[in-house]
């Protein structure tokens, strides 16, 4: 049996429409108009224990709604969902003891209390034994260098510090699943690296199953082999990152630093993308022309200082996938 099973989940929201302006507001008082939004439209997937899956999609695609259904916060209209055999919204309390959740935009720590007191409170709320608690806390503190933050009130933490503390807070009770809803949002580069590194270790060393929603493609590239793309409440793609690339576009980038600025590169198998100074960005299809053959042809013809081949950035792949499904 899979660790997490999601089968044909549908979730709709009814949202009151408001027309703009004062008249619109008054009109809304007299007669409400509702609009139904299908946040999840027959979403299905399975996760094995210890998997780390990246979950991406534009704003409003249904990422957070999926996480909220899995954590037992929202009740879907129809469909089946189980985590370790528990139905999240029906067995909310026992499911909650088994999962850890971080909503990146919000903190679960007590705003006015020092970090350590928030941790102590969570110990009591999750009924963690004091021995286990100290072991878990010290381990998390060592991994993310939290001890200097223990006595700082949460409102005084920087966003990066707060996120490290929030991650620890979600893990004190040693859950077997971790749901991370945009854990790197707004973080600086160093904090992002620290958070990614931590998530990776948690997954590799402790076998915690992780579902990670994000807008940051670097998160996906650094962390997950498996990527699910969602748009308009539907899973558009569920595969490894490489397969996703291969399916959406086979094209590669060829980036050349020329010795001579005035030169232009012309070849029947490449298309020109952009140029800045000596650097030229080109695109080619490795199925039409073998990479090695193309490179030797170009180096023979032009004076070249340096050259490298790249995959197109993942943002572009995703944006093409959205285009295919007319999500814009």
């Amino acid at each position: 049996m899979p660790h997490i099973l999601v089968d044909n989940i549908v979730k709709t929201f009814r949202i009151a429409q408001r027309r703009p302006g004062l008249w619109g507001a008054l009109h809304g008082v007299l007669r409400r108009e509702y609009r139904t939004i299908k946040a999840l439209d027959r979403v299905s997937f399975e996760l094995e224990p210890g998997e780390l899956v990246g979950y991406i999609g534009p704003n409003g695609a249904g990422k957070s709604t999926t996480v909220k259904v899995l954590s037992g916060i929202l009740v879907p209209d129809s469909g089946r969902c189980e985590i370790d055999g528990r139905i999240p919204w029906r067995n909310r309390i026992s499911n909650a003891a088994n999962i850890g959740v971080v909503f990146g935009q919000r903190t679960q720590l007590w705003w006015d209390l020092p970090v350590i007191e928030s941790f102590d409170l969570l110990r009591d709320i999750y009924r963690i034994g004091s021995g286990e608690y100290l072991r878990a806390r010290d381990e998390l503190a060592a991994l993310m260098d939290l001890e200097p933050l223990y006595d700082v009130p949460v409102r005084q933490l920087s966003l990066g510090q707060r996120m490290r503390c929030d991650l620890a807070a979600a893990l004190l009770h040693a859950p077997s699943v971790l749901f991370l809803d945009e854990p790197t949002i707004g973080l600086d580069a160093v904090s992002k690296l620290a958070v990614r590194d931590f998530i990776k270790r948690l997954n590799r060393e402790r076998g915690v199953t992780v579902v990670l929603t994000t807008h940051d493609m670097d998160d996906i590239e650094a962390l997950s082999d498996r990527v699910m793309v969602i748009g308009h409440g539907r899973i558009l793609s569920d595969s490894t990152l490489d397969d996703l690339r291969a399916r959406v576009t086979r094209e590669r980038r060829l980036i050349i630093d020329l010795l001579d600025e005035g030169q232009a590169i012309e070849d029947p198998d490449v298309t020109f993308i952009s140029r800045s100074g000596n650097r030229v960005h080109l695109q080619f299809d490795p199925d039409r022309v073998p990479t090695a053959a193309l490179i030797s042809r170009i180096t023979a013809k032009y004076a070249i200082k340096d050259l490298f081949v790249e995959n197109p950035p993942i943002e572009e792949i995703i944006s093409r996938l959205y285009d295919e499904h007319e999500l814009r």
Partner: protein
Amino acid sequence: MQSFVLPYTAVLSARFRMILQYRAAAIAGFVTQIGWGAIRVMAMEAFYRSTSAPQPMHLEDVVTYIWLGQALLGLLPWNPDTEIRAMVRSGTVAYELVRPVNLYTYWFSRSMAFRLAPTFMRSIPLAVLALLFFGMQAPASPEALVYWLAATLGAVLLSTALTVILSITLMWTISGEGVSFLVSPVIYFLAGMVIPLPLFPDWAQRVLDILPFRGICDAPFRLYMGHIPATEAWAVLLHQLIWIVILVAFGAWLLSRATRRLVVQGG
């Protein structure tokens, strides 16, 4: 057992400690309540001086009633829990649902601290001042003191159960301003904080006897000063108990409805 109640007592005591930090708010509330108390006492004195008809309560009892009310004003369930309100507005309420606890009991504990902590800070100094300088009387008898304490415990539970219901309505209204606007004058009036309830006409007494609000201020206060004899204390406590059971059951039902139709704000 200890491990069962632990989450709830922990959140109650944390909230209590947090509120005790707000000293400025406590001092401001203290000063305002003395001012208001003085005005209410003066109004009542003027009323008693202008009438020769026998009243259902002596002026000294009314004065004590008013000062008890000022000291315990914080117990009145006139608004939703501000912490839950902030959580609903920001969407942080989502975290409340991923805790392995009974949400109703959890919010009951939070709201109890929300009602008790500010009251705890203001009531004792205010009562001491009123006893020494403003004509408030001591409890009628040691027995009256004991029954008053028991009824005050009932009042705390009653008030908390009402506060939780107000907090749950936030799941529909989000802001809660409207609810406070509608509810607070009604509660003030029906609890006896504007005019002591014994001064209401007879037909109103029959309604007030049924409503739960009498159990928050009026009945415990009158036990304190012996206006309700100790032999009738059981009726006060029973009335409170019945309403606590009804309001807790209703609150728990309402919360289960609310969580089923939940829309978490933002993403």
